[in-house]
């Protein structure tokens, strides 16, 4: 019996030197680096993207990548990162928030002044809800302050899902049974709805981080979580976004980036701060610049 051979475009051959060229570009542009024993992942992802872009050679793919045609840098970087969002993702930053950042934030607060925390992009809401739950579960001082949490995203469908507050059990995998019981209601098999009181206390807004007029509405934040967004912007937009975030922060306010992101590829406006659980970035105090 004849076997049907799978047909497809002939695989593009990529040399090790070409992979090195790509890795060096990626490192320079994003800060991501790959030890030799991880090069295999690069080979695989590169092959995927060459096919996806219908490139006929590494050269033509690399040209697409370098000019970021159709956001190719984002596609390539996304291929390396786990994009699933879930509750208590990057828990070390939440720990840093309650172990260190908030102590510094409240030092400057006047009585009655709120603490303002911003999650942008908030996607389908796991991040702002996680912040809220974590604070209530872990911060000693949580009842001594008013806390405003705002979640913003450019994607209105994601925002609607966030406002609905219904999640599958995969998203809740990092939460203990107690936490789930306290803040969620099971709605059907493998679906949980977030407690309506909690849901209604988070403000969800549509916002574009590069739009100056939209960003003018946001100000005086103490902590901003801006994870896995800035690194995808082109040079020009990254500057604008960084300046907008700077403007939205209180002096001495903090910004947390994504796990494989670094301000070294984004902006010189912020000071690097090292805490036990995380590296975060700080807007200098009023009257002092970065150094």
């Amino acid at each position, binding site marked *: 019996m004849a076997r049907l051979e799978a047909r497809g475009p002939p695989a593009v051959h990529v*040399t090790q*030197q*070409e992979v*090195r*060229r790509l890795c*060096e*570009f990626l490192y320079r542009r994003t800060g991501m680096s790959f030890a030799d024993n991880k090069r295999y992942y690069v080979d695989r992802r590169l092959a995927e993207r060459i096919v996806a872009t219908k490139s006929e*050679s*590494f*050269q033509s793919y690399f*040209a697409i990548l*370098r*000019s970021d045609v159709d956001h190719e840098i984002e596609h390539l970087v996304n291929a390396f990162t786990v994009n699933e969002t879930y509750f208590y993702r990057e828990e070390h930053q939440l720990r840093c928030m309650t172990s260190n950042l908030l102590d510094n934030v409240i030092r400057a607060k006047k009585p009655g002044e*709120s603490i303002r925390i911003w999650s942008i992009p908030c996607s389908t809401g796991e991040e702002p809800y996680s912040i*809220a739950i974590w*604070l*209530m579960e872990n911060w000693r001082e*949580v*009842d*001594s*302050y*008013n*806390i*405003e*949490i*705002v979640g913003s995203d450019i994607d209105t469908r994601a925002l609607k899902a966030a406002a609905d507050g219904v999640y599958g059990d995969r998203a809740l995998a990092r939460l203990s049974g107690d936490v789930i019981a306290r803040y969620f209601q099971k709605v059907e098999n493998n679906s949980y709805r977030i407690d309506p*009181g*909690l849901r*209604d*206390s*988070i*403000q969800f*807004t549509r916002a574009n981080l590069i739009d*100056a007029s939209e960003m*003018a*509405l*946001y*100000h*005086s934040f103490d902590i901003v979580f801006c994870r896995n967004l800035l690194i995808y912007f*082109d*040079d*020009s937009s990254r*500057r*604008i976004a960084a*300046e907008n975030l*700077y*403007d939205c922060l209180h002096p001495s306010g903090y910004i947390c980036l994504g796990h494989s992101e670094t301000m070294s590829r984004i*902006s*010189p*406006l912020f000071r690097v701060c090292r805490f036990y659980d995380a590296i975060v970035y700080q807007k*200098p105090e*009023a*009257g002092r*610049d*970065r150094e």
Partner: protein
Amino acid sequence: MPLIKRDAVTAPAAGDRPDDVASHIAALSGSDAQARWSAARALRGRADAIPALAAALRVEQEPHVREAIMTAIMRVGDEASVAVLLPYIRSQDAGERAAAIEALQALPEAILPFLPELFSDSDSDVRVLATELARNVPAADATHALCALLEREQHANVCAAAIDVLAEVGTRDAIPVLKACAERFAGTPFVPFAVSIAIARIPDS
């Protein structure tokens, strides 16, 4: 529950701050850094504000305001922007140079016509920084301009910088020039090494 929610996202209490170009330009030369910062941001991308932004840049001491002014100029994105930013790559202050290079790197199309002149500058440090500006232009243009530089360049550091960019973007057209450069600098530190790596990285086809 300690979480509170405002009814709506509200604008800052600054209220009736005037929003016309003239007011922003006036604020650019004020003594309040925060006001200068806001003014620079408000003038972002405005070609008619370039002279005022250029004047402000000349005297600005606060790094974050300088950054915002450069962004404002950069966002106009044309030859006028480049003309204002370019002199800062000659600054005696390393921070100013870094800021200018970064702003200019976002303007590959606008910078391209300036490259030949920059590559002929009498200051070797300027030629070095200019090679960095070639990095984001299309590979064929970058290769062409950098090869023209390498063919006549006598300064090892300039060659080194050009080779670094060619290692990323260079096409096979660059190989003869690279080899000739290695010969010219044979026996000196670094350049022969750099050429061998760069040639190895250039794809075969």
